């Protein structure tokens, strides 16, 4: 039997606490829920889980239209919200990377939404967007416009959720991209200016390529975070009207925490994790390709 050298023993002594911590807090729950995902366990009536193989996964993938509806809504929400946040964040960052009076004041102001707890943001907007007594409709009607069914129309409500997300998380994009812009070397711009490049040419030819890694990184972070949409749905629409704003996370919450179907809840959680890993892999490979180019 091979014995560890003293160097290896020291190495393992340092590694072991972190490894145990990681195993207990990350790996164990994953294994536990994976095991549960192959069972039927209605925790409020069944004393113990009952093994049913892949039945839970089959149910979601082939039998449950609600899963696919929620997935479609969540994917659309991520695509629209993150894209708009990126564009707005880039515009704001470009604007505030210029020198002008009051720049620091605006920088701080723009960060406030991001600092608010998401559930507080949700209830704040729920009150402001109420069709009858909300301040936003009052203002619209005050200037002669029609009231909007922000949360009560199945056609409008999904975009309301996106609008609030954009309000809350554009500052994150702005902050990250501002840091990226400020780290760019000024010499390149000076050379380009000497060569007669316009602002747009400088942006397209210098700025954009240099900050692309940052754009991909922040987009990846935001996309993964947005995919876990829960608080805004919970607080603003309650997934309504008629389930039009039900996100995948909200459905997971219902199954696991409201209906206590722990087997099925674990299965959909694993499907969720696999989807997120897939999304991350796509974006990371894209990032690597960009870097290679």
């Amino acid at each position: 039997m091979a014995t560890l050298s003293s160097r290896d023993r020291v190495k393992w002594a340092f590694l072991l606490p972190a490894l145990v911590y990681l195993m207990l807090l990350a790996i164990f729950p994953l294994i536990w829920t994976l095991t549960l995902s192959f069972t039927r366990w209605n925790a409020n009536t069944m004393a113990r889980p009952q093994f049913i193989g892949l039945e839970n996964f089959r149910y979601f993938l082939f039998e449950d239209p609600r899963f696919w509806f929620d997935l479609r809504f969540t994917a659309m929400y991520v695509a629209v919200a993150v894209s708009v946040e990126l564009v707005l964040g880039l515009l704001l960052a470009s604007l505030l990377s210029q020198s002008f009076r009051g720049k620091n004041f605006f920088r701080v102001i723009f960060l406030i939404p991001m600092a608010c707890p998401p559930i507080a943001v949700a209830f704040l907007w729920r009150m402001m967007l109420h069709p009858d007594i909300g301040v936003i409709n009052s203002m619209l009607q005050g200037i002669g416009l029609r009231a909007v069914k922000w949360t009560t129309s199945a056609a409008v409500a999904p975009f309301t959720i996106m609008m609030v997300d954009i309000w809350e998380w554009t500052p994150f994009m702005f902050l990250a991209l501002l840091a990226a812009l400020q780290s760019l070397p000024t010499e390149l711009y000076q050379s380009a200016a000497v060569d007669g490049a316009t602002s747009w040419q400088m942006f397209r030819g210098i700025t954009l390529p240099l900050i692309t890694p940052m754009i991909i990184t922040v987009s990846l972070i935001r996309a993964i975070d947005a995919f876990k949409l829960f608080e805004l749905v919970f607080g603003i629409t309650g997934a309504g009207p008629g389930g039009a704003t039900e996100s995948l996370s909200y459905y997971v919450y219902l199954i696991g925490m409201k209906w206590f179907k722990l087997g099925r809840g674990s299965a959909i959680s694993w499907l969720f994790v696999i989807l997120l890993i897939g999304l991350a892999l796509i974006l990371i490979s894209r990032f690597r390709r960009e870097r290679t180019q």
Partner: protein
Amino acid sequence: MRSFWKVAVVLLALCCAASAAFAGGAKEAAPAPAAAGPAEVDLTVPITVLVTDPHIQVVDTWKPIWEAETGGKINVVLVPYATLEEKLWIEFRTKAGSFDIACIPVTWKGDVFGGEHVEDLRPYMEKFGYPNWDDVMPAQKVIVGWGEKIMALPYDGDNHLFYYRTDALEVPEYQQQFREKYGYMYSLPPKNWEEVYDLAEFFNGWDWDKDGEVEYGFAFIAQQNTQAMWSFLDFAAQYATVAGPPSNHTSNIFFDTETMEPLCKTPGWVEAMKMIQSLVKFAPPGLLGYGYSELRQAYVSGNSAMAIDWADIAIQAQYPEEYGSKVKGKLGYGPLPGASKYWDRRTNKWVEEQHNVNFLDFGGWVYVIPKSAPHKDAAYKFGTYITNPERSLLDVCGIHGYTGANPWRESHFKAIDAWVRGGWDRDSAEAFLEGVYNILNDPYAVTDLMIPGGSEYYNVLDTHLNKVLSGSISPERGCELIYDDWVRITNERGKEDQKRYYRGSLGLK
């Protein structure tokens, strides 16, 4: 390579540990041994109470007095309603003993009582007594029962009432105009949903209280995930059954008790769905954004002629300063409107007959003692302390402000002076109490859905109802979708088990 194998061995060991834990954790722990039954209960022990807002008002009121009288200690765990259920179930599964007594909605009784996660209180009542059981209203005795057992302490008589504005429906000039337009005179309170429809149309979209603002006909909770399904069931109860001793064909609106087939596709349900959908056009424009908070705020601020809600509107209406009420002294109360017909499933025909069915929707909050509670006897004593006739009266009548608790004892309905001291005007108090009393005193009142999976059944009802109310699907389609989902849920949970629970909830063998 060797390192790889070491890591692999560690992972394998963890997998084995997880499997072992899975197998072990899956076993239900042996129930805690019954308390040794001391002759005198030690009340100096700390009692942990799990409660939500606004029920914490009641606990906070009595806590210092209890502590001074007994030398004990009350620890309050306040959680939002949204997380109460998970807190409860984590305790039931882990048996950690994290609280001794909990205030929960009785509508969870199918899961909580049926799963025997809480103590049967009958032995406690025999051992320590109960403060005047005969004083408890019949409906309250029914809802805390499970078979022969008593699984909870009653605390709140919470059912939907019908509200109307007296400065609209009782104005002779408007009554005359209504009679001319519709060719008949309505009852006060309206006797059926057909009358409510006409009244809602009549009082919709004009300033009948002359306050300079346009008012609307009828308001109810309609927002998804805010208990809108109970609004619908107020209609379904009238069209889908007839009052009588609970059986398959009387006072039964959810399932066929023989086959466990959902009744959601019956013409009675479809008619109810059509009626509630048709009333949306006479409601405030933002109705689909009305959860319970919004409804109460809007109604007591005077925006509608009629509404259905629990007793909260009646209570909030009494406090203009706190809730901005503009309707104090202007409310009429009644039981739920009936219907001019009901679907008879025995004959599969409509029976054209005016009738009323009282429906115990939600049913109220109750106190339960988990089997894992560390201090069950003391918890029982504390539960009966705060719910005895004298103390509970102060909590329901407004003297202690808005507590969320509504009258549930006979004596609460007789102590009108206490209600007047609580801020009510005498006429309103009498009318309100009469309305609630008639519902709670009805032996044939339809009980709420109280079987395992209740929240899942209601979630799909709520979701599809919301589609119907927003006009995205027809009432017939909505009922079909609810039916399909209820069949699926029933099958998943075991049809025979569910049938047993359902029959038990109706008191059938």
